[in-house]
């Protein structure tokens, strides 16, 4: 397939001016930077045993979602996302700026479908006991489902809640499709700004990884990491991912728009490229990454890679093959520290890249397998890679603004 690229004829420069993170490591940029430098990993091997998850660090939702009524209308994934979106707006200095928020575009990468486990279990138990009269399921659902649960399940209601709580209303688009949704949210938002179709956008996603219904979906494909936590590059035979909870949002805007309002950039979002190979033959993923690599931009000596490699096979081994052909680039796998946040992993990678560039250092390796090495120079470029556990390949180039 031909890759889709965001580089159209028009070329407004696009800056990352806001970052919001709420993850298993904590909330906010300083907390994340400290934890990354301390190589801290927050992992729970017991709560969902034998499945390993990275639980959300305690956050005070009230600070970004002041109305309890709003919080009650959301399930965890929406609360996490709405919270992280608020942090991103704050970081960009536009929280509560009605003029900008009213024309700000939004592309959210979302899953959804959070279930009421007790309702499902009760119905299945009754059916196992022989309650299979016509209409039994209807009757139980009519009586037991909370009317507002539907709104917490709908994919586009993360964006809806961000509009309600934070007032972002220029446009509201929700992309679905696991990891690729996160890549495409960034790709389309960037393309629109670069082409002058938009001035400023909020992009990102969130996941509640502490969900048995979500574990079931990935267990169907034997993708869940079980037993003891192992870093992504060291999983070997024991392939799979540990679901992570977290939200990652970014504010991106044209340079002209940022300068006009005196905003301070973290970094430039230079390019996002994506493809979806069929993955029918071994080597197709590595070949696709190899094809995307020269398209993402011209790379210099002070460039690093932050990948959302999942630990799922064969994707991660193929990505490793690709990386081994580019040994001059220091690599970090966000999945080791944050787990796999699915739709959110690519926006998370963009956030970590922008943060590293702003702080003038790549955070230290966290990898006993030796794929990750120290980088002593400040990175001026970081390529973010998103290889889906099942489908989708994407790359972005985040650069320092000289």
């Amino acid at each position, binding site marked *: 397939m031909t*890759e889709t690229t965001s580089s159209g004829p028009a070329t407004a420069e696009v800056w990352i001016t806001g970052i919001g993170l709420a993850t298993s490591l904590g909330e906010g940029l300083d907390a994340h930077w400290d934890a990354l430098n301390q190589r801290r990993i927050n992992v729970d091997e017991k709560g969902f045993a034998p499945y390993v998850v990275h639980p959300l660090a305690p956050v005070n939702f009230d600070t970004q979602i002041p109305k309890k009524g709003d919080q009650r209308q959301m399930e965890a994934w929406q609360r996490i996302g709405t919270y992280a979106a608020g942090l991103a707006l704050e970081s960009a200095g536009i929280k509560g700026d009605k003029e900008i928020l009213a024309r700000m575009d939004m592309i959210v990468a*979302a899953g959804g479908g959070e279930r009421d486990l007790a309702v499902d279990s009760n119905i299945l138990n009754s059916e196992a006991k022989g309650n299979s009269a016509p209409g039994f399921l209807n009757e139980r659902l009519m009586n037991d*489902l909370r009317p507002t649960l539907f709104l917490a399940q709908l994919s*586009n209601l993360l964006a809806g809640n961000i509009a309600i709580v934070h007032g*972002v209303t220029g446009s509201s688009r929700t*992309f679905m499709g696991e990891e690729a949704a996160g890549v495409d949210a960034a790709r389309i938002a960037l*393309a629109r700004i670069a082409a002058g179709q938009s001035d400023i956008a909020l992009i990102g996603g969130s996941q509640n990884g502490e969900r048995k219904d979500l574990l079931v979906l990935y267990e169907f494909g034997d993708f869940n990491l079980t037993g003891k936590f192992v870093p992504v590059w060291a999983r070997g035979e024991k392939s799979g991912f540990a679901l992570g909870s977290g939200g990652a949002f970014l504010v991106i805007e044209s340079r002209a728009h940022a300068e006009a309002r005196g905003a301070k950039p973290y970094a430039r979002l230079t390019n996002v490229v994506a493809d979806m190979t069929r993955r029918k033959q071994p080597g197709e993923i590595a070949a696709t990454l190899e094809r995307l690599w020269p398209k993402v931009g011209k790379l210099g000596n002070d460039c690093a890679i932050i990948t959302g490699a999942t630990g799922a096979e064969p994707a991660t081994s193929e990505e490793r093959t690709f990386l081994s052909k580019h040994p001059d680039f220091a690599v970090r796998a966000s999945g080791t520290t944050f787990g796999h946040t699915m739709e959110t992993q690519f926006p998370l990678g963009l956030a970590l890249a922008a943060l590293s560039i702003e702080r003038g250092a790549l955070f230290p390796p966290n990898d006993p397998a030796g794929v990750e090495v120290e980088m002593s120079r400040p990175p001026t470029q970081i390529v973010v890679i998103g290889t889906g556990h099942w489908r989708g390949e994407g790359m972005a180039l985040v650069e320092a603004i000289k």
Partner: protein
Amino acid sequence: MTATRDKFGRPIVVVTGMGVVTSLGSGKADNWKKLTAGESGIRTITRFPTDGLKTTMAGTVDFIPVEPFSSTDLSERLGEVVAEEAIAQAGIGTRGDFPGPLFLAVAPVEVEWPQRQELGRAIGTSSEVDYDAMLRVSGGGRFAQYHRRFLFGSVADHLAEKFGTKGSPISLSTACASGASAIQLGVEAIRRGEADATLCVATDGSVNPEALVRFSLLSALSTHNDPPQAAVRPFSKNRDGFVMAEGAGALVLESYEAATARGAQILGILAGCGELADSFHRTRSSPDGKPIIGCVRNALSDAGIVSDQIDYINAHGTGTPENDKMEYLGISTVFGERATQIPVSSNKSMVGHTLSAAGAVEAVFSLLTLEHQRIPPTINYDIPDPAIPFDVVPNKARDARVTAVMSNSFGFGGQNASLVLTREPV
């Protein structure tokens, strides 16, 4: 030589292929015939028992069988049928090799009750059924096909493979505005010069017990079960909700330049798209109507026209008390006195609300309106609502001169999207 760019210097975006399936039938010819005859596709549900449900009818598509049934499988199948029709009409690319990206509007995908019940049976009666027990039986490859099926990206993945679209396919949801959003994304890609052609598909096969219950619990559905054909009553005083329906719509969009260069027949122009989100409430529109008004104005200004140039409005017109009232407020604010003169009809009175697909299904019907110079009616319009003095084209189709159509879509989560479609470049 005709200009290939619009007044803003952007490539003009044209439609060269269309496909549609609704509860009325499969394909443009069958749908148009029944739509302009004022027929209803709403029927009593036979797919599953309806005991205990307040609403027992829907616009199901039962004539395209999917075995075993899941809403996601039906959505995919309907998407295939309409994409096939649209690509064949456009005569673009070669079989399995569409020369552009896919933008797909699709309902959020989730594991459904038949699969959950299968897990329950796999657990057996020896232990309590809960999610821990379900997890114990889920792995080992026995249910691997359900991972593939119930990924959110699965429908787009399969359609991209079948039709050979290029690049990373996008699955999107803007609730009941999704179909219009898919078209908007396609228009934007062509205007950016990223693609000469895009395949925009919107599909929904959501009539299953839990989906029905969910809308029912939000009091959104009509309960006029008998006769089902009379259930959807947009703009009527006795309207009492929407009716869930299945369907799909597809458009092949191309730049005017690329379409004319290959000698393609141009079916219409996608002149403008507008959107604006509402921050008032999760399921209700802002009482002042400002987001809808802004959305309609954005579509007009994106097309570079004024409201006087619109000859027909293809309404969102769900038949819920709230939607129709707010749509009147929005339209009357923008169109002023003309709001009571311009024809405004609701296809949903006949096909029901195809949810994620509605924006694209209604875009196809808007283009057919332009082609045939005939406006489909709003049926079941017996008791006018004096608070909504639209000319709803009551009960009978009408021949009219139509050069520009506005098609509106509004959805839960504050989603608003409007399209402007024309016969000729504006």
